[in-house]
């Protein structure tokens, strides 16, 4: 039995094939600069969204800053003495 199977190809097939295969690199477009940087842009966008969302959540859930009157009221009602307050202010200045 022959070691080859008698397959044929159309006339001029391999010339045509070489032409078609040589044209593939031109058909396969090189990625644009935007396409190259798209993954990094996507990463930066995700980071920005995370930061904005974090800020939004914090601003909605954080306790509002106490006013000076409220602080004074708190200190009066607490057991802290004036001397302790003075000591604290002196040690921090």
């Amino acid at each position, binding site marked *: *039995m022959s070691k080859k*199977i008698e397959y044929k*190809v159309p006339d001029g097939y*391999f010339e045509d094939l070489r032409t078609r*295969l040589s044209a*593939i690199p031109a058909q396969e477009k090189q990625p644009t600069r935007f396409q190259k940087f798209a993954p990094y842009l996507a990463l930066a966008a995700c980071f920005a969204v995370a930061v904005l969302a974090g800020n939004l959540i914090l601003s909605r859930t954080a306790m509002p800053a106490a006013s000076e009157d409220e602080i004074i009221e708190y200190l009066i009602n607490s057991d802290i003495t004036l001397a302790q307050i003075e000591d604290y202010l002196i040690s921090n200045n």
Partner: protein
Amino acid sequence: MVCQYSEPLYWHIRALVGSHEDADDILQEVFVKVWKALPGFRGESSINTWLWRIATNEALSFLRKQKVRAALSFSSIDAEAERVLDSDPWFDGDEAQRKLAIAVAKLPDKQRAVFCMRYFEELPYEEISAITGTSVGALKASYHQATEKIKASVELAD
């Protein structure tokens, strides 16, 4: 590269899949993959081995899909192999060659690839091993099993 390798790669794929149209489609896919992967080719294997590996994987992938398609249409693999060969206008073999081609087509995919590379392309086992990633010992066993199956298949058809 195209000038040097397109024809031998075509015959490699053709031996595996049988049909001219399918071999043509697969070869184009192979070269698309080759062009894309070429910048990353580090020369860890020879360009020959690399190209044959891509072509073999692409052809095996095609054969798997073909088998699934045949199963979904409730046709047997054997009947599908005969149908593909008989409907191919680019097969010019005699009856003995038809039986050989059908017997080869009935082999399991990987065994078929080993048989084609060894029998038709006469590649050394070491080269086939580099292409398929299978040990030489396993390849020899696979080739022996393939020849036994083909002999049985051809004798049954006589």
